[in-house]
């Protein structure tokens, strides 16, 4: 079933002033319920503008956004409804923390939804355990946590609204490798457990290749490509033209192929590369 759809979405910043610039134009996209989609694109390609349309933070100049079949701007006064349905985690979300305790901060979203105290408490518990925050964290001040912990509190703050669609803008930016792995793993688990639709905005082709089933590419405000991971990442010239590049391991394998070694073209993750290499070795090595 279709969860997210946009039709001819167009938005211009500072229209009618000398600073005018078109952020996105004529974007048509469709995302199925339960899909894990990677959204990639160069800096300034319109990714951030696009995702802010999906929960109604930005109202398009023209075009429509449908969530679960409903036009979100049909009744502008009820737009908040869609903010709960489509959870958006901004870049560096830890800068949005403001409450005295982690518990209260995570509860901010659910309380805005008007949920009962019991339901709020249950959601805080579920959301914090989803991001791997133990009970001992809940009564601490968010400002005394480490960077990675703050990030997880902020993500929990969005998860607690239990949105049907979860959009994450560079959720691992500025974290160390272990923190990255942890957060990505938690997002994957959340996806598997809840069946929510996930849109992951990332600069890291490796992350997108590992987790997403489909990839959308934005370029100069337009949706330049949409397809499965192998469809998109196997077109390396196309990616180069966008200022992007296939995952490193894919580039190594295409170089191997160029040198006449018989390896498949659809290697996008390190795990798959390992399996391919092991089977190659067991067959007697890569000698020509």
């Amino acid at each position, binding site marked *: 079933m279709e969860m997210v759809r946009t039709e001819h979405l167009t938005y211009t910043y*500072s229209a009618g*002033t*000398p*600073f005018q610039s078109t952020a996105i134009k004529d974007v048509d996209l469709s995302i199925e319920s339960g899909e894990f989609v990677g959204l990639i694109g160069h800096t300034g390609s319109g990714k951030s503008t696009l995702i*802010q349309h999906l*929960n109604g*933070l930005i109202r398009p100049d023209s075009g429509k956004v449908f969530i679960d079949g409903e036009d979100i701007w049909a009744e502008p006064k009820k737009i*908040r409804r869609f*903010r*709960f349905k489509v*959870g*958006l*985690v*901004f870049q560096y*979300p830890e*800068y*949005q*923390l*403001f409450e005295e305790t982690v518990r209260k901060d995570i509860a*901010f*979203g659910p309380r*805005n*939804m008007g949920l009962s105290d019991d339901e709020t408490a249950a959601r805080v518990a579920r959301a914090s355990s989803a991001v791997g925050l133990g009970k001992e964290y809940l009564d601490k001040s968010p*400002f005394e946590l480490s960077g990675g912990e703050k990030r997880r509190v902020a993500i929990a*703050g*969005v998860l607690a*609204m239990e949105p049907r669609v979860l959009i994450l803008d560079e959720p691992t930016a500025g974290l160390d490798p272990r923190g990255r792995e942890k957060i990505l793993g938690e997002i994957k688990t959340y996806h598997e457990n809840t069946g929510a639709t996930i849109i992951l905005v990332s600069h890291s082709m490796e992350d997108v290749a590992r987790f997403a089933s489909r990839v959308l590419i934005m370029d100069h405000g337009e949706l330049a490509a949409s397809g499965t991971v192998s469809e998109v990442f196997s077109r390396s010239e196309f990616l180069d033209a966008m200022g992007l590049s296939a995952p490193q391991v894919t580039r190594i394998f295409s170089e191997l192929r160029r040198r006449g070694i018989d390896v498949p073209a659809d290697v996008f993750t390190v795990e798959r590369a390992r399996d391919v290499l092991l089977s190659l070795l067991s067959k007697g090595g890569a000698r020509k």
Partner: protein
Amino acid sequence: MMNDITFGQYFPGDSVIHRLDPRVKLVLTIAYIVMLFIADGLYPLLVGVVFAALFYAMARLPAKLIIKSMKPVVPIIVFTAVLNIFFIEGDPLWQWQFIKITREGVLTAVLMSIRILCLIAGSSLLTYTTSPIALTDGLERLMKPLAVIKVPVHELAMMMTIALRFIPTLIEETGKIISAQKARGADLESGTVMQRAKALVPILIPLFVSAFRRADELALAMECRCYRGGEGRTRMKQLSLTYRDWIACAVMTVGIAAVVFINLYGPEVFRL
């Protein structure tokens, strides 16, 4: 929503006005304000209007921008005009019970409106055509004599530079925080005054936290580059007066002289 603030913004360009020395521009702005206040009639004020129009034309700023920057002062002008029209004593032009409009009232209202418009136009021209850095540089140099009486001139100028530098950053940050809290369902647009004030807490706290964080980082970065105040500090850009600056000063002097002359010997009509 925060992008509509044009007052005090700098619009880069390379017109004659842009290239004037910031010290000269500061002094001339003050001189222009003085000129507006000594002008005590319609004719001398017109000199001020002509000057403003001339300088704006020379600065080659878009007309749209000028109109936009005037918008926020319109209520103030209307308010002063209305007060003046109804509360100044003199020859009544029109009367209805205790409400009356006098000739003096109307005249004062018109003159005051022109004066306020010129004031705003003149002082915004300074910030439109002078980059914040040049402006504080100029201020620092102009106030240097005050250092003798222990005024921390350099520190004040540095504080101003930093404050100006961070205004756009903080505006951008505010926008981001507002979006992030709205994404969590924060309702900023409805409710009573109290509810709305409360709704600002989730925005103000992160904003303050980040302002302090930035201040810390900036202080550290400055210390890493051995900042130790103004003492012995040299400048990359030396300010020096050119023929342009002298011409500008001469023009302003002529303007003030003209205003004084018209004040003294001009026609008696439209006087206060």
